[in-house]
């Protein structure tokens, strides 16, 4: 085969360029530790995510001193958690975060705008991606794969917050009566969970006030948790002190608040 000398030089230069590009990409991937989204996660059933580990209760959990797992379910047209309905994803500064994202319907993406946290989200598969967050910052999550007529409305937030503003306590439930008979105690059963990996304490604060009589009460209770634990406590209001009429109550744990009101009656009507 007859090849012109210039052609030969060009051919060699082209091959050198190609090999050099492959070398830089290999170094830029393996050397810098940029792991590909791959097949290391087990498959899930997109129709029964409530039975899948992590996706039964999606959200942030702490797994190490500065390490957090975040399970997210993408759906038409939002993220649970992350979007407005399910609340933004909060993580602390200086943390390493493992995102596990799946879809319960069609193919989406989970993409933090302006970063290389960007992955396809395929129903049946779990996309795992690890990123480090140094500074407090708010990142937009968007879906960059067309997923249906409201695709452009699909957005969420990953908020990296200062260490001191960050906690993983959730005020799960407050069991409170709607009405009580004068003289009886009104009891409030409070359930709080911790998604921290180690032993932690927090404070639950109970406040109640009868606006008509001006009576009020404020009680604080310290709660102690093991790693990934739930704690319960009960607050009591003696209705003799409060008198009849409605009183308002709130339970506060960190920045989580539940509130309601209780009617204190002379005599409870029997449901006969």
């Amino acid at each position, binding site marked *: *085969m*007859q*090849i*012109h000398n210039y*052609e030969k030089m*060009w*051919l060699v230069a*082209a091959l050198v*360029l*190609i090999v050099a*590009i*492959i070398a830089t*990409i290999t170094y*830029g*991937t393996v050397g*810098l530790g*940029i792991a*590909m*989204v*791959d*097949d290391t*996660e087990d*498959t899930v059933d*997109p*129709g029964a995510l409530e039975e899948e580990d992590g996706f039964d209760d999606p959200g942030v959990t702490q797994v190490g001193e500065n390490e957090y797992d975040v399970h997210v379910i993408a759906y*038409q047209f939002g993220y649970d958690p992350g979007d*407005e309905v399910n609340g933004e994803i909060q993580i602390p500064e200086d943390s390493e975060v493992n995102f596990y994202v799946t879809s319960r*319907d*069609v*193919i989406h993406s989970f*993409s933090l*705008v*302006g970063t290389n*946290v*960007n*992955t*396809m*989200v*395929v*129903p*049946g*598969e*779990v*996309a*795992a991606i690890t990123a480090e967050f140094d500074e407090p910052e*708010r*990142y*937009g999550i*968007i*879906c*960059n*794969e*067309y997923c*249906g*007529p*409201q695709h*452009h*409305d699909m*957005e969420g*937030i990953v908020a990296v917050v200062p260490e001191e503003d960050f906690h993983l306590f959730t005020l799960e439930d407050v069991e409170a009566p709607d009405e009580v008979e004068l003289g009886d105690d009104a009891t409030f059963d409070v359930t709080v969970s911790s998604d921290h990996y180690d032993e932690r304490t927090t404070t639950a604060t109970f406040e109640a006030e009868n606006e008509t009589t001006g009576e009020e009460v404020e009680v604080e209770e310290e709660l102690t948790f093991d790693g990934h634990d739930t704690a319960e406590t009960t607050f009591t209001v003696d209705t003799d002190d409060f008198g009849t009429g409605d009183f308002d109550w709130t339970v506060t744990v960190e920045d989580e608040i539940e509130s309601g009101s209780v009617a204190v009656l002379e005599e409870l009507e029997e449901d006969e």
Partner: protein
Amino acid sequence: MSTFVDDFPAEAKVVRSSMYNAFVALAIGALMGILQTLYRTDVFHFISAEQYYTVLTAHGVFMVISFTIWFLVGVFAWAVISSLDRGVEDLRFTWAWFGFMTVGTLLAAIAIFGGFMSDPPEVLGSELSADVLFTFYAPLEAHPFFYIGLVLFVVGTWLAGADWFRSYLAWRSENPGERIPLPTFMVLTTMIMWYIATLGVATSILVFLLPWSLGLVDTVNPTLTRTLFWFFGHPVVYFWLMPAYLLWYTLLPKLAGGRLFSDPLARVVFVLFLLLSTPVGIHHQYLDPGIAEGFKFIAMTNTMFLLLPSLLTAFTVVASIEHGARQRGGEGRLGWLKALPWKDPVFTGMIFAGLMFAAGGFSGMVNAGMNINYLVHNTLWVPGHFHLTVGTAVALTFMAASYWFIPQLTGKQLVGRSIALVQVVLWFVGMVFMTNAMHRTGMLGVPRRTAEPWYDGFEYAGNVAEHNFQIALGGTILTLSILLFFVVILLTLLRGSKGGVEGSSIPEPLSGPDHSPAVIDNLKLWAGIAIVLVIMAYTLPLASIVERGGLFGPDGMRSFPSGNPGFLEYTSLFVQMVIQNATEVIFR
């Protein structure tokens, strides 16, 4: 010196008709293009956000399936017939593949445009709509017509390839031992690549998506159908590109006043595309969960070696043009550039197309880099890239070539040569504005395929508004360019005077086919190696995908038929909004 239509009047009619079909698709695609450009840059909303996706599906399918491939079959038919210097074996067979492709196009068009109707009728048990975009990723589901249309269209191209192989075999029996003429060699290698590549999409549609859309099976494995799509989806970009390459290798040196520099290298380039185009599709799936990193790495290295034939092409084409310029009296290290026929829209259009392809090649290398790809995947960077490649290298070459083909196919002289020159320059300018801004907004994270890429929760870290202005400006210039293209074509068809068109013969290369070993022409050998490479690249990934997700996907996978609020609802909402705003203004 006779034109193609003088030599082969019946065949010229098929080639002409194929190109007219391409032009119709181009017109529809361009209209959809400007509608979405103005929408997503927030300049003007002629459509609703939901209809944006119908428009986007139509833009993609009409531009990169209909326009490109209709033009391709025209170019390929011309190339085979003229370089073998023999008419087709059976004209009825030729019109048969033309018919398959036409019916396929119409069915897919009906399904897509059903998306514009306020209350699409039910046909075959599901609503007529196909807002699934060019990639039709399951479990988003289109109407069966969409899938059937694509299948018929692809079958039409298979039959077209059979037509050309038939011509070749007939020629071969009369010319044993002769080298295959270069244009025919290019067509045949490209068609072998196409047969291999389309097996992916044919399997995806016939085995999985069509039965699923007809309700015969309940579920699909989305990773499997997606992988089969990209099995076809990357080689298809070379399918679009190969007719442009064919024209750069044959027509362009002639127009420059010279001859092709090297026939052997041209053959090597087309063999390399045949071998390497298909085992790379997984590079579109770098971000897919469920596919091992190793498979992605193999696709990456194969992709990088695909640079080789394009780099070789850059050399040969530039060398051929320089030779032509020197034949025309050009001198000096770069001074020869001045001797080129810059006033010829065919030449200038193709040169600009080639220049933009170089830029597109560079952004393509970024896409193919499996680590950097995380920054740009599915951002506006990607459409920026392929508007340089298919949108300019291919489309502008085809438009410029039309100014040469239409006279060859009708015997009429081109009317409006200077308008044609303005047209190709405008396309270049429009694409410079549009694609540059698309790449840059992509780096800010602005997503592609999104009607309203503005959000409540955050702001982009850059001046998106200014880039949007450039995108809208570029899109407007491109629309103007398309209008001028149709002005020239229609003027030529209606007003062109018969006769005086230069002959269609292509000059002999400087270095002829006898400078390459005969094994280069062994099509069976290359086809065999190509198949082995595909088997090596795809067997393990496909086996792993089926093992993970099941052949037909998990039971919990549901279907999501596409569809959106119809045109009438939208219009009435729009009118209500206008009245409401007007009353507020009046009574304020």
